């Protein structure tokens, strides 16, 4: 009840004309970012973060989180109209979205994608509203060992659940940690891995890395494909919108299922991309006519969009309650919190009540406003993609360069951005995952501090991580997720052998 009151107060804070204005700007920018190749959630937020340094944190987070919602909405436009996923999480939307557009039902597809997104997001926010305060309250008991254990769990689940080769996930993650460690050591004040360079004294800023890894590399990849956009026309009028809305209740099972999948994968660091594929797969498997999928089934658009948006939203739960982001974009937002001078973690719910509840309130409003904005402006954004790539590509590069420069007012950072761009390009082509690297880069210092504080407290005994029920459980969970692929492989092998043996016995 107390939380609901706080939420109402949050709505009160958000409903000022200034914050509503920022919200709309954020959503519009977000849709642009989501539509354009090479700009996405993480780097869109990273580029605009420096502009918010002087704002008050509440207004800043409202604007930045709305960029995130906008980007989630925007990804669907390109995948349905152009068959080009604007974001990784909208790949699954192309399977049925583009066929629908080819049949001239683009309006229907877009409306159901956006509405599904909005429903998924609202389910995510409701879960945050009720679960996040509880998680935060629980986490107040955490000391350094518990925090390290939770970080450890996060990273283990990335390794255990990642689709890429495990060695590559491990490399990407450790590189992130190492980059975070460059510069002045926070505990001893010694210089680490600067190799005598004064430029490296500042260390690597994750914002610069994100802009290079996600922005520049994406342009290089798009360029390589020699892309020319050829899109379908889209017109959404109110009749289509209402017709589609009237149809939606029929798909409530799909919506609910995708929302749950999304929330689960968002809170555990599975991410929106995994959620959208899983949502699509489950909908296809459990549908009454699975043959319609891939040829333009409305369910095939609803399922991945709902799941992706639910995951994207609920990825903010661990960020708010524990200070551990569930996705790359959430990691950038977390970095923003630190820059604005807020200490992420469970204390946030006590010390910065206004901030937290305003953010949660803005999630409700932002997603509903986002739905209305995106429905009314689709033709406008589809037109953006008709601008020739030879204008868009250099303009995006300029925006990236400005973004990288403004982080520290350092020209060296622009060079770093280019270097990260090339690294990102090579890594993407060789299936090294980028999200764990960014996450490690953001969390590196905090994870290391937690580890060292623990070690100082325990005088170097690793047994401290199993010293009480709480930390022991988290560590065991972490080890299970880490070793899960191994365990399931062994079990499959055993089962396989057992069936072989039984079949040889019977024959």
């Amino acid at each position, binding site marked *: 009840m107390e939380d609901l009151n706080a939420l109402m107060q949050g709505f009160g804070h958000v409903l000022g004309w200034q914050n509503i204005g920022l919200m709309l700007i954020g959503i519009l920018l977000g849709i642009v970012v989501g539509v354009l190749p090479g700009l996405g959630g993480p780097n869109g937020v990273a580029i605009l973060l420096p502009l918010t340094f002087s704002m008050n944190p509440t207004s800043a987070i409202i604007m930045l989180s709305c960029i995130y919602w906008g980007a989630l909405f925007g990804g669907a436009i390109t995948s349905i109209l152009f068959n080009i996923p604007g974001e990784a999480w909208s790949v699954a939307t192309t399977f049925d979205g583009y066929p629908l557009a080819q049949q001239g039902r683009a309006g229907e597809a877009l409306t159901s994608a956006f509405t599904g997104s909005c429903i998924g997001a609202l389910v995510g926010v409701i879960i945050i509203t009720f679960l996040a305060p509880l998680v935060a309250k629980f986490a107040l008991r955490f000391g350094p060992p518990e925090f390290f254990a939770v970080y450890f769990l996060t990273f283990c689940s990335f390794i255990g659940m990642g689709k890429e080769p495990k*060695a*590559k996930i491990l*490399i990407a993650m450790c590189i992130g940690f190492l980059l975070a460690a460059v510069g002045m050591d926070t505990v*001893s004040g010694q210089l*680490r891995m600067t190799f005598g360079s004064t430029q490296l004294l500042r260390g690597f800023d994750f914002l610069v890395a994100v802009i290079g890894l996600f922005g*520049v590399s994406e342009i290089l990849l798009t360029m390589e494909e020699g892309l020319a956009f050829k899109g379908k026309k889209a017109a959404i009028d109110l009749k289509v919108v209402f017709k589609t809305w009237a149809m939606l209740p029929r798909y409530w099972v799909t919506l609910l299922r995708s929302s749950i999948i999304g929330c689960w994968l968002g809170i555990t660091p599975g991410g929106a991309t995994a959620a959208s594929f899983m949502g699509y797969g489950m909908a296809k498997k459990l549908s009454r006519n699975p043959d319609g999928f891939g040829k333009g089934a409305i369910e095939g658009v609803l399922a991945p969009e709902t799941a992706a948006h639910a995951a994207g939203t609920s990825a903010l739960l661990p960020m708010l309650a524990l200070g551990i982001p569930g996705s790359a974009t959430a990691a950038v937002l977390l970095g923003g919190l630190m820059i604005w001078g807020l200490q992420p973690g469970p204390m946030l719910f006590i010390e910065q009540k206004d901030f937290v509840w305003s953010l949660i309130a803005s999630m409700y409003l932002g997603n509903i406003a986002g739905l209305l904005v995106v429905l009314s402006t689709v033709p406008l954004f589809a037109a953006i993609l008709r601008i020739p790539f*030879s*204008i868009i590509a*250099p303009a995006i590069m300029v925006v990236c360069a400005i973004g990288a420069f403004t982080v520290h007012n350092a020209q060296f950072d622009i060079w770093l951005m280019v270097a990260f761009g090339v690294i990102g390009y090579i890594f993407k082509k060789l299936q090294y995952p980028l999200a764990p690297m960014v996450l490690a880069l953001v969390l590196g210092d905090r994870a290391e501090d937690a580890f060292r504080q623990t070690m*100082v407290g325990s005088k170097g005994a690793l047994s401290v991580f199993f010293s009480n029920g709480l930390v022991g459980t988290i560590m065991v969970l972490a080890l299970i997720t880490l070793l899960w692929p191994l365990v399931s492989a062994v079990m499959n092998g055993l089962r396989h052998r057992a069936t072989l043996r039984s079949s040889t016995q019977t024959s």
Partner: protein
Amino acid sequence: MNSPESSGEEKAQSPALFTVRTAEIVVALALAIGALIVSWSNYQLGAGWNSYGPDAGYFPFRLSVVVFLASCVVLVNAIRHNDRSPFVQRDQARLVAVILIPLIFYVFGIAYLGIYVASAIFIAAFMRFLGKFPWWKSAVVGICVMLAFFYIFEIQFKVPLPKGPLENWLGY
């Protein structure tokens, strides 16, 4: 800009510059060497234990050892898998170079011309040479885009970006 049909045709004919296998091996070796350098640097700093707890190099040293071991695994896998599919084809490499090389000149240019002038030239040149736009259209778009940026960053948000002789001459 290539139309999809023609680029598709070229892709089929274009020879591979080098294979995935080569790329995997080169990257894994580079990572392994990098990891060795970093671990040596941290070892110098002290990767052990002092009276206050772990040394500054304790955490990074162990991480770099992990990177070294993992890149050895990647290396072995790459050699065993022997994936001969192309990493980049010659045409693709040319397209990537077309954007990467001007980008490097552009970043050089920022240091001397300031970001606004360099960006306007970058956009205009891109349109002229890649998009085959007439030069006056390219110039107009380049200048207008940068005027808009100048308004947003310099006047609205008062974020100082690197400026060159032109802005000095205009008194900014």
